[in-house]
């Protein structure tokens, strides 16, 4: 229910003033998700894989992670999609660790790192904040997730 807290907080006049927000008097309440936008969304590319290939070739660091208790965009969806890239494995599938527990699993390809986060839902940092933090720190450092 955490998004209900945000709906309360960001609709307060003192909060909007402190954030220099809503200066034009938007004619609707602030809300976490806009029904109008999602119901009327027009162009949506069917696949991101061509862009992935192009940006991998350009040398960008690309990490894809997946909380493994999400059923909306689940880990198997991402694995099927990435498998379609036919990437070369650099570091074979291994469990990554945090606090002597398996934080998830990871496989490193030429140009892309994939990692799962064990026990996390769609919003990984909400459900597994420490594991998400280690994932982020490893990404910024360009280092593989810890093997022990």
């Amino acid at each position: 229910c955490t998004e209900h807290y945000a709906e309360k907080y960001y609709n307060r006049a003192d909060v909007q003033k402190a954030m220099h927000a809503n200066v034009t008097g938007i004619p609707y309440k602030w809300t976490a998700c806009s029904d109008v936008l999602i119901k009327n969304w027009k162009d949506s590319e069917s696949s991101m894989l061509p862009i992935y290939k192009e940006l991998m070739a350009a040398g960008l660091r690309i990490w894809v992670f997946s909380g493994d208790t999400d059923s909306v965009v689940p880990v198997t969806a991402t694995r099927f999609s990435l498998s379609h890239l036919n990437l070369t494995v650099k570091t074979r599938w291994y469990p990554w660790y945090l606090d002597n527990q398996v934080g998830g699993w990871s496989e490193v390809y030429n140009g892309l790192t994939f990692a799962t986060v064990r026990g996390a839902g769609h919003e990984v940092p909400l459900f597994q904040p420490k594991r998400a933090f280690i994932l982020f720190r490893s990404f910024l450092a360009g280092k593989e997730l810890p093997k022990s």
Partner: protein
Amino acid sequence: TKEQELDRISALPGQPTVTFSQFSGYITVNEEHGRALFYWFIEATSIPYKKPLVLWLNGGPGCSSVAYGASEEIGPFRIDRTGSSLYLNKYSWNTEANILFLESPAGVGFSYTNTSSDLIDSGDKRTAEDALVFLIRWFSRFPQYKYRDFYIAGESYAGHYVPQLAKKIHDYYKEDSHPIINLKGFIVGNAVTDNYHDGIGTVTFWWSHSMISDTTYRSILNNCNFKDDNKTSKECDDSVNYAINHEFGYIDQYSIYTPACI
């Protein structure tokens, strides 16, 4: 810059005392239609001038990076259940980087348009275009971040926003050996990636996690081809709706083992 100082947040209501700086406000991305995007920028807790810059985008499409990314995922504050005060997030990502949250596209959260028809013809293309304009103008307002190592992060439908914006930036600076927006990479989570493979993988997850019956699994695979974008058959819709309405039960589909929000 003066504009930067006008956006400085002295303190949020109910906020604990912190040492890092934060700014929020609007950047116009289209004068003709009057589209302006709202951002919240939270500097790193220590030596921000040495830390990378990370743009965080939530998905939806139509959902707010302030509501999710900043307030319940990676930001420094959590909102208490009464909505009256904030407490610190021990694993905030702004210990490692300067974090920029963007409410995109116009119509999300505090981001607005003066042309109401914009709200019913948004899509991937204009969202990426406006986000690039936003970034170019944001770096003008925060010149101390020009040339800084820059990353984009996001989840869910931002599995579209993030690579599409990354491509726009890459193309924009293709001829520039010293780009102001110094994009080094991106990271996405539970990301919408490829309609066909995502679709097959989603139904496979439902079956392999015992959320649906064999009968329903076969029915969905037989009736849904996942290839035709935006066009599904009635039989496909009926199969998926039966699964959700009669077999899932009252669960939080975004986290199937934790309590659903009543």
